[in-house]
């Protein structure tokens, strides 16, 4: 279903309601929201797709169009078939067909203009053969404001429309619909996050908004400081006192965070960073997607220090891995990245909480109180037990300079060697730990000789194409420490490797070349719009 209109028409909310209707019918849902970087005017559209299986991509063909204006109908014409049902606001669009007299319905129900979308949704529900009970239930559950009035508007339109293209239902129970950013927020909450600190930047901002709203219920402090430099330094201040903290931004904001990131590496301060990619370079396309920050995130910040980087592929994985990221950050006292993109952050996915492994804040090694506390005392694992300011008898000294075990600045060569090796050993300990996770996911046709190599949110499109076309899909989800052995195992039996990435230089393919793994073909897309299965299939036909 495609829902389109002008920016400010509430397209995303209308899309969310349609998504919940499909969810209630037992479909697995994916919602793609496409909008320009402006507040009013311009063309917005949401594509809601339902399927019996889990999905994470939208198709080029639409079955239903919900048009709030004429532009929607014209602009997406290439995606229609003769069977496409177009439902439109008859006040805005003067054509023959399934028009909804929105103004008249609102007048009849004495409802404000803002409820106009409920009329369109009601009309759609009837056209799609959705039982009124389902509509009623979805409105009551997901439209807390003006529920009764909205229902009257929807019912009026429902009764005026006829059933055109019944979409049926599946036997699945409804799942939780979450955007990727919401899933990340919930995952971080599960692993004991105390505070979230962020400066607004699309496409990370919706996590800031979500946590600001949910913070009091979840016990999470949310702070919006003066800029990303302050964000990172405040987060390190929180970590120093023992409070679990995450920050969120996109590439440009992350540029400002890198000095603090390097500090986290040197001072061994745990922090989780959500970096949600958009089309670059520079300001780029603020509201469109991209996968251009892999190399940047893997190597950002001066100096050498261990880090964890994970790129979840959908809402389900985001919920799982963000909790892992927080726990690893604290266990190893390192920065941990959740590398997302606009597709994942702002796309809506069906998430089954029952499928996520249990998460809880893992215990971290703490100082036993004996002798003099030394913040950087050397250990076989490289991990120093923690003490926090306020702890009786402990003097806790964190230092951005090269330092000795007590945290006092030093320029003495042997001590610099010792502390560097300590940090490296910590990285080795981290790698041993991450090896225990499935860091490379294979899907599609497991025994196929041709494989797609991808990462992040292209999971959705690659999994679908792989499954439907008999291709293997190999997707490293952990990017650092890089799970090379797992990748090599996944590549066993693969004769032809096709890299699929949403960037212009094939960043993952380039990265694995250092290990002698060479992609035979590369399918790249870098205009800010995610691949659809149809487009990927068409491009694959040319290379395999």
């Amino acid at each position, binding site marked *: 279903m495609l829902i389109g209109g002008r920016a400010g028409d509430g397209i995303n909310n209308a899309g969310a309601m349609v998504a919940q209707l499909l969810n209630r019918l037992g479909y697995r849902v994916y919602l793609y929201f496409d909008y320009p970087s402006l507040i009013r005017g311009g063309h917005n559209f949401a594509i809601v797709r339902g399927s019996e299986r889990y999905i994470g991509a939208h198709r080029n063909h639409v079955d239903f169009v919900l048009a709030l204006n004429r532009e929607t109908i014209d602009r997406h014409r290439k995606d229609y078939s003769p069977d496409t049902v177009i439902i439109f606001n008859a006040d805005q669009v003067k054509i023959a067909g399934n028009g909804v007299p929105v103004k008249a319905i609102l007048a009849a129900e004495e409802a404000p203009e803002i409820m106009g979308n409920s009329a369109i949704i009601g009309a759609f529900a009837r056209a799609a053969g959705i039982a009124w009970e389902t509509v009623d239930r979805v409105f009551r559950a997901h439209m807390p404001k003006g529920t009764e009035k909205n229902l009257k508007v929807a019912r009026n339109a429902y009764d005026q429309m006829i059933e055109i293209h019944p979409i049926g239902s599946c036997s699945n129970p409804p799942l939780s619909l979450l955007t990727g950013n919401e899933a990340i927020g*919930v995952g971080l909450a599960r692993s004991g996050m105390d505070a979230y600190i962020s400066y607004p930047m699309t496409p990370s901002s919706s996590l800031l908004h979500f946590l600001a709203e949910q913070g009091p219920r979840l016990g999470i402090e949310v702070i919006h400081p003066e800029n990303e430099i*302050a964000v990172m*330094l405040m987060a390190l201040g929180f970590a120093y006192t023992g409070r679990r903290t995450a920050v969120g931004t996109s590439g440009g904001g992350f540029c400002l965070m890198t*000095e603090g990131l390097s500090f986290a590496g040197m001072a061994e301060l745990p922090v989780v960073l959500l970096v949600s990619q958009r089309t670059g370079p520079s300001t780029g396309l603020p509201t469109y997607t991209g996968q251009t920050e892999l190399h940047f995130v893997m190597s950002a910040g001066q100096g050498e220090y261990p880090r964890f980087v994970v790129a979840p592929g959908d809402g389900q994985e985001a919920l799982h891995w963000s909790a892992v990221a927080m726990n690893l950050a604290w266990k190893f006292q390192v920065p941990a990245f959740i590398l997302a993109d606009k597709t994942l952050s702002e796309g809506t996915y069906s998430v089954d909480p029952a499928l996520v492994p249990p998460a809880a804040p893992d215990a971290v090694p703490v100082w036993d109180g004996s002798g003099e506390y030394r913040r950087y005392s050397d250990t076989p694992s490289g991990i120093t037990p923690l003490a*926090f300011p306020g702890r009786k008898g402990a003097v806790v000294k964190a230092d951005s300079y090269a330092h000795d075990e007590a945290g006092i600045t030093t320029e003495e060569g042997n001590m610099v060697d010792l502390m560097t090796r300590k940090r490296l050993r910590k990285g080795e300990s981290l790698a041993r730990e991450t090896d225990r996770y499935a860091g490379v996911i294979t899907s599609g046709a497991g025994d196929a000789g041709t494989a797609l190599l991808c990462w992040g949110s292209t999971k959705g499109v690659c999994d679908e194409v792989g499954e439907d076309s008999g291709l293997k899909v190999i997707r490293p989800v952990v990017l650092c420490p890089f799970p090379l052995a797992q990748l090599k195992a996944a590549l066993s039996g693969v004769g032809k490797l096709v890299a699929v990435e949403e960037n212009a230089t094939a960043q993952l393919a380039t990265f694995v070349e250092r290990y002698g793994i060479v992609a035979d073909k590369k399918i790249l897309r870098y205009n800010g719009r995610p691949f659809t299965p149809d487009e990927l299939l068409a491009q694959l036909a040319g290379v395999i």
Partner: protein
Amino acid sequence: MAGRQIITTAQNTWCPGCGNFSIQFTLKSILEQREKDGKSLDNVVLVTGIGCHAKMADYLNVNSFYSLHGRAVPAAVGIKLANPDLTVICCSGDGDSYAEGLDHLVFAAKRNIDITVIVHDNRVYGLTTGQYTPTSPLGFKGKSTPAGTAEFPFNPIELMLASGATYVARGYTRKMDQLKRLVAGGIAHRGFSFIDVLQICATFFPAADYYDPRVYDLPESGLENFEAACIKAKEWDYSSDAKIGLGMFYTRSLPTFDRHMPVPVVTGADRDRAISELLEARR
């Protein structure tokens, strides 16, 4: 019980005659007094930036957070927000907080967060060997401005008054009794305390001969009068020749940011329940 040894064994590398020694002595006596008063030093955190001032983190045997250049203040804000029970003292430099990290200083004042910022204002970059800073006088000949600067300095007192600081003072490293009173008062003040300390840089800006005949003590009354504070602040613009008032410019009591937005503690089973409810509501 013997008090804590306040000075660490780290080798001190400040130049002989450096004003930092005065500030170190000031902090040491304040910390010793605090312990004598029966208050634990375990709850004290010293945050520094980068520069000569910042070596304080190595030299004082208290919890310390040796931050980045310009980033002492945001770290101090984070520490205080994370644990409002801590006493957070932030030593910063003029290059540190008036140049590289000015935005953080302004915002910390705006928020009236309960920390104490002591700016070691020697009006020159010492550690990078002698460039002008935002408080160097017009025409200052530094290594990056051999022909003299062509820009007026900031007046940090005016800047902090305009930003919302609720404790604004100026000290001088050659007036140590007064300096101790100002810093101790700042620590005791509930809110954002700012003390600009005119500090002698023995190597690159030995200005004692300039300061000594010009300094005088500001009156200690009427400190809640903002307009009067602004007039006092304008008396010396850090460049032109004028009398230099030392002491308190302004103080008043306002709600602090760190006690402003209490978020309830929700952990363990309570948090699990809240998460389950949230996920259920999305079905």
